[in-house]
Protein backbone atom coordinates (compact mmCIF):
# COMPACT_ATOMS: atom_id res chain seq x y z
CA UNK A 1 0.00 0.00 0.00
CA UNK A 2 1.40 3.33 -1.04
CA UNK A 3 1.29 6.07 1.58
CA UNK A 4 1.17 9.79 0.87
CA UNK A 5 4.72 11.15 0.63
CA UNK A 6 5.40 13.42 3.64
CA UNK A 7 7.42 15.87 1.53
CA UNK A 8 6.17 18.80 -0.49
CA UNK A 9 6.83 18.82 -4.25
CA UNK A 10 9.90 21.01 -3.92
CA UNK A 11 11.42 18.69 -1.28
CA UNK A 12 10.54 15.58 -3.32
CA UNK A 13 12.14 17.07 -6.43
CA UNK A 14 15.24 17.99 -4.42
CA UNK A 15 15.57 14.47 -2.97
CA UNK A 16 15.11 12.95 -6.42
CA UNK A 17 17.75 15.17 -7.99
CA UNK A 18 20.25 14.55 -5.18
CA UNK A 19 19.80 10.81 -5.38
CA UNK A 20 19.86 10.93 -9.18
CA UNK A 21 23.29 12.57 -9.08
CA UNK A 22 24.61 10.33 -6.28
CA UNK A 23 23.30 7.14 -7.86
CA UNK A 24 24.61 8.32 -11.23
CA UNK A 25 28.10 8.70 -9.77
CA UNK A 26 27.78 5.20 -8.33
CA UNK A 27 26.88 3.86 -11.77
CA UNK A 28 30.35 4.81 -12.96
CA UNK A 29 31.91 2.73 -10.18
CA UNK A 30 29.59 -0.15 -11.00
CA UNK A 31 30.47 0.13 -14.68
CA UNK A 32 34.15 -0.26 -13.80
CA UNK A 33 33.47 -3.32 -11.66
CA UNK A 34 31.16 -5.02 -14.17
CA UNK A 35 33.14 -3.84 -17.20
CA UNK A 36 29.93 -2.81 -18.89
CA UNK A 37 27.85 0.27 -19.56
CA UNK A 38 25.22 0.62 -16.83
CA UNK A 39 21.71 1.72 -17.79
CA UNK A 40 20.62 4.49 -15.47
CA UNK A 41 16.89 5.02 -14.87
CA UNK A 42 15.33 7.80 -12.79
CA UNK A 43 15.30 6.88 -9.07
CA UNK A 44 11.80 6.10 -7.84
CA UNK A 45 10.70 7.77 -4.59
CA UNK A 46 7.72 6.47 -2.68
CA UNK A 47 6.42 6.22 0.82
CA UNK A 48 5.22 2.76 1.77
CA UNK A 49 4.03 0.86 4.80
CA UNK A 50 7.22 -0.87 5.94
CA UNK A 51 5.38 -4.21 5.94
CA UNK A 52 4.78 -3.76 2.20
CA UNK A 53 8.45 -3.42 1.38
CA UNK A 54 8.65 -7.20 1.15
CA UNK A 55 6.04 -7.33 -1.59
CA UNK A 56 8.15 -4.75 -3.39
CA UNK A 57 11.09 -7.12 -3.02
CA UNK A 58 9.12 -9.83 -4.84
CA UNK A 59 8.75 -7.54 -7.82
CA UNK A 60 12.31 -6.32 -7.57
CA UNK A 61 13.94 -9.71 -7.80
CA UNK A 62 11.21 -11.56 -9.74
CA UNK A 63 10.99 -13.65 -6.59
CA UNK A 64 14.07 -15.63 -7.58
CA UNK A 65 16.74 -16.43 -4.99
CA UNK A 66 18.55 -13.26 -4.02
CA UNK A 67 20.86 -11.74 -1.45
CA UNK A 68 20.14 -8.74 0.73
CA UNK A 69 22.89 -6.57 2.22
CA UNK A 70 22.42 -3.38 4.16
CA UNK A 71 24.18 -0.66 6.09
CA UNK A 72 23.08 1.93 8.64
CA UNK A 73 24.11 5.43 7.65
CA UNK A 74 23.54 9.02 8.62
CA UNK A 75 23.97 12.39 7.02
CA UNK A 76 23.93 14.94 9.81
CA UNK A 77 21.07 13.84 12.04
CA UNK A 78 19.20 12.14 9.20
CA UNK A 79 19.53 8.40 9.69
CA UNK A 80 18.84 6.08 6.80
CA UNK A 81 19.65 2.60 5.62
CA UNK A 82 21.33 1.68 2.36
CA UNK A 83 20.11 -1.67 1.10
CA UNK A 84 20.98 -3.72 -1.96
CA UNK A 85 19.10 -6.65 -3.41
CA UNK A 86 20.91 -8.72 -5.97
CA UNK A 87 19.84 -12.00 -7.53
CA UNK A 88 22.05 -15.06 -7.17
CA UNK A 89 22.20 -15.28 -10.96
CA UNK A 90 23.61 -11.75 -11.18
CA UNK A 91 26.26 -12.54 -8.56
CA UNK A 92 27.27 -15.60 -10.57
CA UNK A 93 27.49 -13.51 -13.74
CA UNK A 94 29.54 -10.88 -11.92
CA UNK A 95 31.91 -13.59 -10.71
CA UNK A 96 32.37 -14.76 -14.31
CA UNK A 97 33.04 -11.22 -15.51
CA UNK A 98 35.57 -10.50 -12.79
CA UNK A 99 37.11 -13.99 -13.07
CA UNK A 100 36.30 -14.85 -9.46
CA UNK A 101 35.40 -18.26 -8.14
CA UNK A 102 32.42 -18.79 -5.87
CA UNK A 103 33.30 -22.19 -4.49
CA UNK A 104 32.34 -21.31 -0.94
CA UNK A 105 29.70 -19.22 0.83
CA UNK A 106 32.49 -16.99 2.11
CA UNK A 107 33.60 -16.14 -1.44
CA UNK A 108 30.01 -15.45 -2.41
CA UNK A 109 29.51 -13.06 0.48
CA UNK A 110 32.87 -11.41 -0.15
CA UNK A 111 31.90 -10.58 -3.72
CA UNK A 112 28.50 -9.36 -2.55
CA UNK A 113 30.17 -7.08 0.01
CA UNK A 114 32.62 -5.79 -2.58
CA UNK A 115 29.75 -5.00 -4.94
CA UNK A 116 27.81 -3.21 -2.21
CA UNK A 117 30.85 -1.23 -1.11
CA UNK A 118 31.75 -0.24 -4.67
CA UNK A 119 28.31 1.19 -5.32
CA UNK A 120 27.51 2.72 -1.94
CA UNK A 121 30.92 4.27 -1.28
CA UNK A 122 30.64 6.48 -4.35
CA UNK A 123 26.92 7.08 -3.89
CA UNK A 124 27.21 8.17 -0.27
CA UNK A 125 30.33 10.27 -0.83
CA UNK A 126 28.53 12.16 -3.57
CA UNK A 127 25.45 12.50 -1.39
CA UNK A 128 27.61 13.87 1.43
CA UNK A 129 29.28 16.36 -0.95
CA UNK A 130 25.90 17.75 -1.95
CA UNK A 131 24.66 17.97 1.65
CA UNK A 132 28.09 19.36 2.60
CA UNK A 133 28.17 16.83 5.45
CA UNK A 134 30.05 13.52 5.44
CA UNK A 135 27.84 10.45 5.39
CA UNK A 136 28.66 8.27 8.39
CA UNK A 137 28.54 4.56 7.62
CA UNK A 138 28.44 1.57 9.94
CA UNK A 139 29.66 -1.84 8.82
CA UNK A 140 27.60 -3.46 6.08
CA UNK A 141 25.68 -6.57 7.10
CA UNK A 142 24.69 -9.44 4.83
CA UNK A 143 21.05 -9.87 5.87
CA UNK A 144 20.20 -12.94 3.85
CA UNK A 145 21.54 -15.03 1.00
CA UNK A 146 19.86 -17.30 -1.56
CA UNK A 147 16.47 -16.41 -0.12
CA UNK A 148 13.21 -15.95 -1.97
CA UNK A 149 12.50 -12.24 -1.47
CA UNK A 150 8.94 -12.95 -0.28
CA UNK A 151 10.42 -14.79 2.70
CA UNK A 152 12.70 -11.96 3.75
CA UNK A 153 12.01 -10.67 7.28
CA UNK A 154 11.65 -6.92 6.85
CA UNK A 155 11.66 -6.40 10.61
CA UNK A 156 15.43 -6.89 10.41
CA UNK A 157 15.64 -3.73 8.39
CA UNK A 158 12.87 -1.30 9.27
CA UNK A 159 11.20 -0.96 12.63
CA UNK A 160 8.90 1.98 11.92
CA UNK A 161 5.42 1.74 10.35
CA UNK A 162 6.25 3.68 7.20
CA UNK A 163 9.36 4.32 5.14
CA UNK A 164 10.42 6.62 2.35
CA UNK A 165 12.16 4.39 -0.17
CA UNK A 166 14.37 5.75 -2.93
CA UNK A 167 15.11 2.96 -5.36
CA UNK A 168 17.19 2.51 -8.46
CA UNK A 169 17.59 -0.56 -10.61
CA UNK A 170 21.04 -0.76 -12.17
CA UNK A 171 21.25 -2.99 -15.23
CA UNK A 172 24.36 -3.63 -17.23
CA UNK A 173 24.10 -3.53 -20.99
CA UNK A 174 26.35 -6.44 -21.86
CA UNK A 175 26.69 -9.07 -19.16
CA UNK A 176 23.27 -9.83 -17.72
CA UNK A 177 23.74 -8.27 -14.34
CA UNK A 178 21.29 -6.19 -12.36
CA UNK A 179 20.92 -5.05 -8.78
CA UNK A 180 18.64 -2.75 -6.83
CA UNK A 181 19.89 -0.08 -4.48
CA UNK A 182 17.43 1.38 -1.99
CA UNK A 183 17.83 4.21 0.47
CA UNK A 184 15.31 3.74 3.27
CA UNK A 185 14.32 6.66 5.46
CA UNK A 186 12.23 5.56 8.48
CA UNK A 187 9.26 7.71 9.47
CA UNK A 188 10.83 8.97 12.69
CA UNK A 189 13.26 11.09 10.66
CA UNK A 190 10.86 12.42 8.00
CA UNK A 191 10.80 15.85 9.62
CA UNK A 192 14.60 16.01 9.84
CA UNK A 193 14.91 14.90 6.22
CA UNK A 194 12.46 17.60 5.13
CA UNK A 195 14.39 20.20 7.16
CA UNK A 196 17.70 19.11 5.63
CA UNK A 197 16.23 19.38 2.13
CA UNK A 198 14.87 22.84 2.93
CA UNK A 199 18.36 23.96 3.96
CA UNK A 200 19.66 22.92 0.56
CA UNK A 201 16.76 24.51 -1.27
CA UNK A 202 16.98 27.89 0.42
Amino acid sequence: MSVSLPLNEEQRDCLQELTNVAMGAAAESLAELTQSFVELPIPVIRCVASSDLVSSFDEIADNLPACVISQNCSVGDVFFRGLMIVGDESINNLANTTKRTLSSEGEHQQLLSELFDTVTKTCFEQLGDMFEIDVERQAAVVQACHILPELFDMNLIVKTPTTIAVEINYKTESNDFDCHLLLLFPDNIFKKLADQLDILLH
Partner: protein
Amino acid sequence: MGIPLLICDDSNMARKQVARSLPTDWDVDITFATNGVEGLQAIKEGKGEITFLDLTMPEMDGYGVLEHVFSEGLNAMVIVISGDIQPEAHERVKKMGALEFIKKPINKEKLADVLNAYGLHQS
Protein backbone atom coordinates in the same frame (compact mmCIF):
# COMPACT_ATOMS: atom_id res chain seq x y z
CA MET B 1 16.29 39.84 -28.45
CA GLY B 2 18.67 37.39 -26.79
CA ILE B 3 19.95 34.04 -27.99
CA PRO B 4 17.22 31.38 -27.63
CA LEU B 5 18.43 29.13 -24.83
CA LEU B 6 16.66 26.00 -23.64
CA ILE B 7 17.13 24.25 -20.28
CA CYS B 8 15.67 20.75 -20.47
CA ASP B 9 15.62 18.76 -17.23
CA ASP B 10 12.85 16.96 -15.36
CA SER B 11 14.04 18.41 -12.06
CA ASN B 12 12.91 21.90 -11.13
CA MET B 13 15.91 22.19 -8.81
CA ALA B 14 18.31 21.24 -11.62
CA ARG B 15 16.70 23.70 -14.04
CA LYS B 16 17.10 26.49 -11.49
CA GLN B 17 20.73 25.49 -10.82
CA VAL B 18 21.54 25.80 -14.53
CA ALA B 19 19.69 29.11 -14.84
CA ARG B 20 21.53 30.51 -11.80
CA SER B 21 24.87 29.38 -13.25
CA LEU B 22 24.48 31.32 -16.50
CA PRO B 23 26.67 34.42 -16.83
CA THR B 24 24.63 37.40 -15.65
CA ASP B 25 25.73 39.54 -18.61
CA TRP B 26 24.75 36.96 -21.24
CA ASP B 27 21.88 38.12 -23.39
CA VAL B 28 19.74 35.00 -23.62
CA ASP B 29 16.04 34.25 -23.91
CA ILE B 30 15.45 31.25 -21.61
CA THR B 31 12.85 28.52 -22.13
CA PHE B 32 12.39 25.61 -19.72
CA ALA B 33 11.32 22.07 -20.62
CA THR B 34 10.53 19.32 -18.13
CA ASN B 35 11.09 16.27 -20.34
CA GLY B 36 12.51 15.27 -23.69
CA VAL B 37 9.24 15.60 -25.59
CA GLU B 38 8.74 19.18 -24.41
CA GLY B 39 12.41 19.90 -25.07
CA LEU B 40 12.30 18.60 -28.62
CA GLN B 41 9.16 20.64 -29.33
CA ALA B 42 10.86 23.77 -27.99
CA ILE B 43 13.89 23.13 -30.24
CA LYS B 44 11.60 22.71 -33.26
CA GLU B 45 10.02 26.07 -32.35
CA GLY B 46 13.45 27.70 -32.47
CA LYS B 47 13.76 28.12 -28.70
CA GLY B 48 16.88 25.98 -28.25
CA GLU B 49 19.65 27.46 -30.34
CA ILE B 50 21.74 26.63 -27.29
CA THR B 51 20.30 23.70 -25.36
CA PHE B 52 21.32 22.39 -21.95
CA LEU B 53 20.07 18.82 -21.89
CA ASP B 54 19.72 16.27 -19.09
CA LEU B 55 20.00 12.60 -20.08
CA THR B 56 17.78 10.84 -17.53
CA MET B 57 14.25 12.10 -18.07
CA PRO B 58 10.72 10.72 -18.43
CA GLU B 59 8.72 10.66 -21.70
CA MET B 60 11.87 10.94 -23.83
CA ASP B 61 15.40 10.84 -22.46
CA GLY B 62 18.30 13.00 -23.54
CA TYR B 63 19.60 10.37 -25.96
CA GLY B 64 16.22 10.41 -27.71
CA VAL B 65 16.33 14.19 -28.02
CA LEU B 66 19.86 14.05 -29.45
CA GLU B 67 18.79 11.44 -32.02
CA HIS B 68 15.98 13.67 -33.26
CA VAL B 69 18.09 16.83 -33.25
CA PHE B 70 20.74 15.37 -35.44
CA SER B 71 18.64 13.08 -37.66
CA GLU B 72 16.28 15.97 -38.42
CA GLY B 73 19.06 18.55 -38.70
CA LEU B 74 17.49 20.82 -36.08
CA ASN B 75 19.15 24.08 -35.12
CA ALA B 76 20.54 23.38 -31.65
CA MET B 77 23.97 23.37 -30.08
CA VAL B 78 23.48 20.82 -27.32
CA ILE B 79 25.46 20.74 -24.10
CA VAL B 80 24.60 17.72 -21.98
CA ILE B 81 24.43 18.23 -18.21
CA SER B 82 23.99 14.89 -16.50
CA GLY B 83 24.55 12.84 -13.37
CA ASP B 84 25.37 9.85 -15.58
CA ILE B 85 29.12 10.33 -15.57
CA GLN B 86 30.16 7.04 -17.11
CA PRO B 87 32.89 7.73 -19.70
CA GLU B 88 30.83 5.75 -22.20
CA ALA B 89 27.83 8.04 -21.66
CA HIS B 90 30.12 10.97 -22.39
CA GLU B 91 31.44 9.31 -25.55
CA ARG B 92 27.97 8.35 -26.74
CA VAL B 93 26.52 11.84 -26.52
CA LYS B 94 29.57 13.36 -28.20
CA LYS B 95 29.20 10.85 -31.03
CA MET B 96 25.55 11.82 -31.29
CA GLY B 97 26.58 15.42 -31.86
CA ALA B 98 26.53 17.00 -28.40
CA LEU B 99 29.02 19.82 -28.10
CA GLU B 100 30.11 19.01 -24.55
CA PHE B 101 29.26 17.03 -21.44
CA ILE B 102 29.12 18.66 -18.02
CA LYS B 103 28.88 16.63 -14.83
CA LYS B 104 26.12 17.45 -12.34
CA PRO B 105 25.86 19.27 -10.05
CA ILE B 106 26.59 22.28 -12.25
CA ASN B 107 28.14 25.51 -11.04
CA LYS B 108 29.07 28.87 -12.55
CA GLU B 109 32.76 28.00 -12.96
CA LYS B 110 32.20 24.75 -14.83
CA LEU B 111 29.67 26.34 -17.14
CA ALA B 112 31.84 29.40 -17.77
CA ASP B 113 34.76 27.16 -18.79
CA VAL B 114 32.62 25.37 -21.38
CA LEU B 115 31.08 28.55 -22.73
CA ASN B 116 34.56 30.08 -23.03
CA ALA B 117 35.99 26.97 -24.67
CA TYR B 118 33.36 27.03 -27.42
CA GLY B 119 33.30 30.79 -27.85
CA LEU B 120 29.68 31.02 -26.75
CA HIS B 121 30.42 33.59 -24.08
CA GLN B 122 33.64 35.25 -22.92
CA SER B 123 33.78 35.98 -19.22
